[in-house]
């Protein structure tokens, strides 16, 4: 584990001039993820914000080879890369799929479930910005209760976020980890570890989205940190079913000093119409999830 940011891989795989929005949480996370994954990697990605980040043909700001695929097919695309590389004797390449919450929680879930059940030897990364941000902030099953999106413009989202991590846990895969751009060393470590492990690895990154969530671009790290501090997003890893908190979430679990959700909510315009009742439901939902994690940590 590198003790500070200066000790991590100095190579840059994301060159200046990418097309992501200012303050993009994905952009920050992706840079460190690629540093951890290094050269011997092939990526596949569906139509999503990452496609935009990669740039317009015939130029790209990313130096890792990648194959674009259709929205629903990301995990199957990875499975095809794995099969094709195995069949042609190139077995030392890491295959990584990178999709948003739409390409994971929603349209991509069938192919992901299939690939995970087959134990496909790949890393699936969901960068979760809690909505269809590439098409301009529409509701997804990852959108939290009380959030305004362009398809929930008046009533806000009336349902809770889907627990994709639990769904992946139910697949009994080799490795599950959550990461945040506010904690790049934790993120880097987990990707390094994921690269070493065989079998299906699922990573979920909480990536704040300035235009979609409604906060100034300079606050991305602050918002990402508040997501952890309030426990709305939890840093952990599960290796062969064994759960452990990591980083800031670990100390929060030990000290029991999570911040109330309002600290996170009040900084984002998407929650400006959240009702008292919704806020209390959302707090309760977050507390229940947190307690589930505490139980898991106890074993």
């Amino acid at each position, binding site marked *: 584990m590198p003790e500070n940011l200066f000790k991590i891989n100095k190579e840059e795989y994301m060159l200046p001039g990418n097309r992501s929005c200012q303050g993009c949480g994905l952009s920050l996370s992706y840079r460190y993820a690629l540093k951890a994954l290094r*050269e*011997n*990697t*092939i990526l*596949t990605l569906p139509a999503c914000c990452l*496609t*935009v980040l*990669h*740039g*317009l*043909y*015939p*130029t*790209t700001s*990313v*130096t*890792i*080879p*990648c*194959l*674009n*695929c*259709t929205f*629903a*097919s990301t*995990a*199957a*695309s*990875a*499975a*095809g*890369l794995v*099969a*094709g*590389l*195995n*069949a*042609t004797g*190139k077995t030392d*390449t890491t295959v990584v799929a990178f999709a948003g919450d739409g390409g994971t929680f929603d349209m991509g879930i*069938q*192919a992901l*479930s*299939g690939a995970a*059940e*087959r134990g496909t030897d790949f890393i699936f990364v969901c960068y979760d910005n809690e909505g269809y941000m590439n098409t301009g902030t529409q509701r997804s099953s990852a959108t939290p209760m009380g959030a305004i999106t362009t398809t929930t413009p008046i009533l806000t989202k009336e349902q809770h976020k889907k627990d994709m991590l639990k769904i992946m846990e139910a697949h009994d895969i080799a490795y599950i980890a959550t990461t945040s751009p506010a904690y790049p060393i934790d993120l880097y470590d987990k990707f390094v570890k994921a690269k070493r492990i065989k079998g299906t690895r699922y990573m979920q990154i909480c990536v704040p989205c300035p235009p979609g969530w409604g906060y100034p671009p300079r606050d991305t790290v602050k918002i990402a940190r508040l997501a952890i501090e309030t426990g709305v997003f939890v840093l952990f890893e599960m290796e062969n079913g064994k759960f452990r908190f990591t980083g800031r979430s670990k100390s929060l679990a030990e000290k029991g000093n999570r911040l109330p959700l309002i600290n996170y909510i009040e900084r984002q315009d998407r929650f400006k119409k959240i009702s008292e009742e919704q806020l209390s439901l959302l707090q309760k939902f977050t507390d229940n999830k947190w307690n589930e994690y505490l139980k898991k940590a106890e074993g």
Partner: protein
Amino acid sequence: MAEVQIMTGNTAAATAAKLCQVQVVSAYPITPQTSVTETLSQFIESGELKAEYVRVESEHSAMTVCISASTVGARVFTSTSSHGLLYMHEQLHWAAGSRLPIVMCCVNRGVGAPWSIFNDQQDSISQRDTGWIQFYCRDNQEIIDTVIQAYRIAEEVYAPVMVCYDGFVLSHTMMPVCIPDAEMVASFLPPYKPHTILSPDNPYNINPVLFPGMRKNSAGILCDGYMEMRYKLQEALEKARDVIIATGIKYSKLTGRDYSEMLWRYKTDDAEVILTGMGSIATEATVAVDQLRQKGIKAGVIGVRVFRPFPRIAVQQALKNAQAIIVLEKAISYGFEGALCSDIKAALYGTGINPPLHNFIAGLGGRDVKAREISEAVQASLTEMKNKNAQNKTIWINCRK
């Protein structure tokens, strides 16, 4: 040495894939294609065929696996039918747009709603515009021979090939099939060379976003835009005609079976009435032609082996002496007529070849159509065609109206 075995169309397809030494198979079972996936599983698990078999959860994923595996240089095979093919639709475009030499068998079956597991060709005909080369087989021998040729064609023009054959009529019917010798196939089919090597040594971003115009790359060279790439796909399919014929001639020399044309003919030398169609219905028409000839009607059959690229010139030449044309089809473009019928008319436009033409829609959802029923309908059409107002029409055969 080539040996003759009695086998179903599905076994013929799987055997062909094995002979072509495919490296990745990914498929999802659907009636009537299922036994192709089962037979290939047998081949792979027993070690007869060294290949990766990805047992996916859907046809959409099956085609996706083929796309990715083909991109990194593996020879791939899949097969499907009906709704499986429709579920792949998005990926069919993606495969062709990616210029990947994927070979797929489509075991033709009707499309719901309502459900039908039985044969017609609505499934593959409705995928006409996806950029795939389409073959239609008339018997099980053609299935094995066409799959082998398909790989050579696909890997030369960098376009995917769909080998279509009729569900149950061929897929589940046992026929004698001459199985080509493995060494012969190996010499006929050179190893697959991908157009782009997707490898960490040489990073590419394959199939990213394009804007409508052309853009320069980092070296200042103006690169193709979306429209140029589409033009090249069209050009590849146009060029595929020559490749299909050259491949067919080469294969004919090795096997003694004639694949030198995109069409096949039956008693056409003196024929005044031409029956034409694709797949087993064209085979059925040969029996109808024998019956018509007994009644003194000089009829013949033109079987269309290749639907895309459409054999325009071959069709013009084959039909130039026809005094009446009957196009038999197991599919329809709703609101107009059969797609093959429209294409044949389009091929004849401006050539001065303009005989009366009736389009028979027959056998949808597996509705039986006997040779006798075809020959009777042809005789009725020939009488009707004497009326100037009835020289161009669509007739549903064996259907209560």
